[in-house]
């Protein structure tokens, strides 16, 4: 029996090109996953380039990696993991029909954690690197060993974390929109697809960072003599 008929007229959020609500929900989910696949290839191009250069210039990459501070990378990793939890809880809150304020609370927490990540990165890492003179093309005063290869590594550090940060900013923008829509009572256990697919995006950005952390900060280990 079509859900359309069960609801009578249009159920909340229903789009006319679909026949049923579940068809619409499946389409939205598949659509977001296809988009995330494009993101795998998009970031993937840089991961591939990184892999090539790391293979060809390992010592330079190790030297460059040691210029980064592990505590910031690790803290930021933890911050994003918490934000993934709060995002999942926010979606669950709408899915199970909790009050909209509860959903909004989780979404705001997620936003704040995302903002914390960006603050730590820009204010303490990037700015610090700028002062130190290890930002290629902008402020480069590095004269240690393997200087050309270290510059290459730092290029990848800034490009990859920069692209990631851009995605975080977009994610925070999306969260803002979601908070507004939730406040306007748009979502319910019958219709929360935008929350669900935004969650997929947010978790994906978290996964990118899960890989960036060891690949950028932990090359060659941090033990004495490495």
């Amino acid at each position, binding site marked *: 029996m079509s859900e359309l008929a069960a609801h009578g007229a249009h159920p909340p959020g229903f*789009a*006319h*090109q*679909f*026949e049923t609500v579940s*068809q619409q929900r*499946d*389409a939205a989910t*598949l*659509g977001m996953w*296809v*988009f995330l*696949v*494009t*993101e795998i*290839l*998009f*970031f*993937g*191009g*840089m991961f*591939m*380039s990184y892999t*090539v*250069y790391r293979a*060809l*210039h390992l010592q*330079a990459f190790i030297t460059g990696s040691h210029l980064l501070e592990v505590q910031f990378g690790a803290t930021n990793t933890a911050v994003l993991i918490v934000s993934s939890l709060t995002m999942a809880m926010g979606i669950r809150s709408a899915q199970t029909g909790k009050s909209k304020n509860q959903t909004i609370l989780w979404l705001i927490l997620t936003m704040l954690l995302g903002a914390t990540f960006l603050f730590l990165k820009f204010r303490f890492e990037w700015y610090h690197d700028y002062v130190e003179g290890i930002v*290629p*093309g*902008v402020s480069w005063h590095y004269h240690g060993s393997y200087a*050309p*290869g270290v*510059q*290459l590594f730092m*290029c*990848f550090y800034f*490009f990859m974390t920069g*692209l990631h940060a851009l995605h975080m900013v977009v994610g925070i923008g999306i969260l803002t929109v979601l908070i507004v829509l939730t406040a306007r009572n748009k979502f319910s256990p019958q219709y929360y697809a935008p929350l669900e697919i935004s969650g997929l995006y947010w978790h994906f950005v978290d996964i990118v960072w899960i890989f960036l952390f060891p690949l950028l900060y932990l090359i060659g280990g941090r033990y004495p003599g490495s």
Partner: protein
Amino acid sequence: MSTAIADLHETPADLGVNYLNASYGIRSWLLTKDHKRIGLLYLATITLMFFVGGTAAVLMRLHLIEPQGALFEPETYNKMFSTHGIIMVFFFLVHSIPATLGNFLIPLMIGARDVAFPKLNLMSWYIFITGCAFALYATLSGGVDTGWTFYPPYSSSFSHTHVVAVALGVFIAGFSSILTGLNFIVTIHKMRAPGMTWFRLPLFIWALYATSLIFVLGTPVIAITLFLLGLERILHVGIFDPAVGGDPLLFQHLFWFYSHPAVYIMILPGMGVISELITAFSRKKIFGYSFVAFSSLSIAVISFVVWGHHMFVTGQSIYAGLVFSVLSFLVAIPSAIKVFNWTATLYKGSISYQAPMLYALGFIGLFTIGGLTGLFLASLATDVHLNGTYFIVAHFHYIMVGGAVMAYLGGIHFWWPKITGRLYPDYWARVAAALIFIGFNLTFFPQFVLGYLGMPRRYAVYPAEFQVLNVMSSAGASILGIGYVIPLIYLTWSMRYGPVAGPNPWRAKGLEWTIPSPPPTENFEEIPIVTEEAYDYPSPGVARV
């Protein structure tokens, strides 16, 4: 000659309420969510870009009448071929069939009311025209002279042209194609009508599905590549610069990882169109449906593992070259399967020679030549001699123009009655098709000979002994140009003065032919329930209904 056209006296007197007249005013077009209107918005933009890119081609061929160059300084000539390549590849061919015919037809062919994400569809058009705007601005400000391949270090460190602006335009247009591909994949998976199983789908849908896979998997890589190139150029850092340990070949790997599958983006939809045209104009079901369907998927998959054949002479390792050469031979197989199956479809068919069929037959011959000459280039040893010559230019133009553009025109003509509700004058259409075929061969066949004799491509001057062949090629180009302009005239004319077409002037099979021409906005009054196989024409020899 069989009666492929329905008796015109049986068609309705007017076009009824349809997607074209359901609402009026520029806002109703610029804010439309109707896939059919979006297809037409794309059609207009793409036609414009085709003639911009074509103008560059005409100027190039005029320049090459003289061995010392008749029109331009070498620097300007470099900008001409770069502009021609960039516009034709990224702003015409990639989007041509998918964004126009694909957008218009996919929901109709699968029995849906629209694509899965209509607003995203409209957004993809706006993104596309933004990309076009960047590219046109850069072109009018002097263009780029790097070739459409943008190789560093020239493009990142030495060229004084508008590399970043053009790269940005390509990046943006690429994003548009990602969204189109995404929309098509979800639409085809989730919105087929009841009874429309995968193996009842028209082969055009299989071809567009395969194309969409390439859109989604390949385009993001050219995006990140151009992004890195732009950063290198702006910040003067050296990702592809050997002085800091970078590798210019890494750019080429990244670039061709997309750009080789991109050429299959450009031909697969055309192959889908040909499957529709051959069956309709032989009034016969396709020979080997599942082989043709799976060959589309195979082409999409194998296209991703052959890109190194563009890099045989660049310093790539010999061992990688071996691997890529072997795989490149492999990709020819599914294309050949299609050609055999189309030919077998024609056998004992009831063939008629309206313009769309002329384009389809031309496609089969010209694509075969283009494909076979590709094998010379897949073979490492011969490619060493042919790379960088006009042989390559001829090879890919046989496929892109002799193949893709002819399929595009064939499709436009075939579905024109459905899109506009009007018939175009087939006499002039056949004249144009003949001019295009003749002009095309006169333009590009001499280029095979020139390449074999050693004339390099992308050179503003050439040795005097090559002049005769160059003049032949330029003469052919002028005929080809006229051939392209003629349809502009009669197709435009037909929109107002052509006879009313009716739902199915070709008496073809397919869900799109069961609804009025032009279709109503919601496509189907009731979503159909599909019980027929694809191309369910009566078998030859059986009494016709």
